[in-house]
Structure formats: C-alpha cells, structure tokens
C-alpha cells in the first residue's frame, strides 16, 4: 500500500484532476496500454499506469471502478478526458518517466501487483 503523496514525490508526478487529498492509500498497481487487458482486472483500489491518453482510457476505468490513473512518458490528459474523469470520480496524475521506470519505483514503494 502506498500514499498518493509518495507518487507525487518519488515520480515527480502531478495531480491534474480529481481528489487532491495526498493522504489517500492505493493498494494495487497495473500497467498497460491495452484497455482489453485492463477490463479483465478485478482488484479494488487500483492505480492504472498507462501511456494511452485517450477518452477510452477514462471510459475503461469508469467501467472497471479504477479510482487512479497515472499517465507516463509525459502523456497529457485532454480537457475532455479531465471532465469525464471528474464526472466519474477518477483522479488523474501525470509524470515524465517511462513506464518501466515508473513501475519499478512504484513497486519499490510497496504498491502490490495484481498478479
């Protein structure tokens, strides 16, 4: 389990939309650019790490009850994505690191893999 504040500190990430409470806990992490893959995951309180920045990333998370998305490789969420995320209560974060670097740091911090 890790805190949102740790993600911001260690990954130099920013919250760009949603709940800004830095004290929130996150249990699991899953990294993919493939939404078909994300839709098969059934863990609660999950952080999705992805470089896919389109509306379907948000829609997929809405359907899968995913509360946190971290965009890596300097991918930015569009205004449309932010408003859809806001509506669904999803917190969006952005960081410049590669997927691999972000995941290894998150893993070291204690974020649990799904499988």
């Amino acid at each position, binding site marked *: 389990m890790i805190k949102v504040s740790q993600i911001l500190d260690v990954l130099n990430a920013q919250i760009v939309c949603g709940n800004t409470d830095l004290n929130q806990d996150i249990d699991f992490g899953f990294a993919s*650019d*493939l*939404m*078909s*893959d994300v*839709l*098969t995951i*059934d863990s609660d309180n999950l952080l999705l790490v992805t470089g*896919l920045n*389109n*509306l*379907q*990333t948000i*829609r*997929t998370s*809405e*359907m*899968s*009850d995913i509360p946190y998305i971290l965009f890596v490789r300097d991918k930015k969420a569009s205004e449309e994505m932010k408003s859809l995320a806001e509506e669904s209560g999803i917190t969006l974060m952005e960081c410049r690191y590669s997927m691999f670097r972000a995941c290894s740091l998150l893993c070291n911090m204690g974020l649990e893999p799904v499988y």
Partner: protein
Amino acid sequence: MDFKFDIEGGNFSNAGTASSDVKKVLKKLNVDPKLIKRIVVSIYEAEVNVVAHAYEGEMNVSIFPDKIIVRIVDKGPGIADIELAMQKGYSTASPEVREMGFGAGMGLPNIKKNTNELNIKSTVGVGTEVELINYLN
C-alpha cells in the same frame, strides 16, 4: 424497466456512453457494486465491439427484479465463426482500433467470464446480436 441506446460504428469518442448510462441506472437501483462492475464491463466490451467491428447498432436493456437482460444488435459484417471469435487472442481489429487500446481478442472471453448467460447470433453480411443475462442476486 426498459431502456434503448443507439451505438455509432467507428466513433470511438462516443464509445461507452450507453454502458455509462446503464451503470448510473444500476447504481440508483442499489445493485451490489461488484455485480455492477461485472455487468458494465461486459456490456462495455459488447458496445466497443459494435464501434470497432460494425457500422451501427442498438443496445436494449431490460431490468427485472431478479435479472438484467442486455441485447446488443448491430448492422455489420457479422461473425463467420463464432466459436473462433470466442477464443482468447482471436481478433480482426483494424490498426485504428488497436491504436485506441483495443483489438487483443479478449473482449468476448471476458464477457463470457462476467455474465451468467451469453448468446450470440450472427449472419455474415447482415449483423450480429449479442445477448447478455446477469442475475441480480
């Protein structure tokens, strides 16, 4: 309770709006969140399939006290071999669909996993009808 939604083939910016509306209805009805997730993930997969593989479609949702029946009917190329389409990894998705994060051939198996009953009827050159049934308790 009956609802009907139109689905536009090829338009990924609207993909998921029907499933999103169904999710809101099920939340209002206080259906168990775990069950809501199973239902909306399945119908979203089916909705995205219409957007990705067909020309246009319709989602019909009927909610009864004990079950929800969702029928997704489309006009499209149809599925020649349903058994093959049900296999994990089988996909005919275009490069455009893959760019949107789909097209891994995982949707139909995932629907199967998350529904109590899945019925698919299809006519090549005409279209496909996917029926999903989930029991609510």
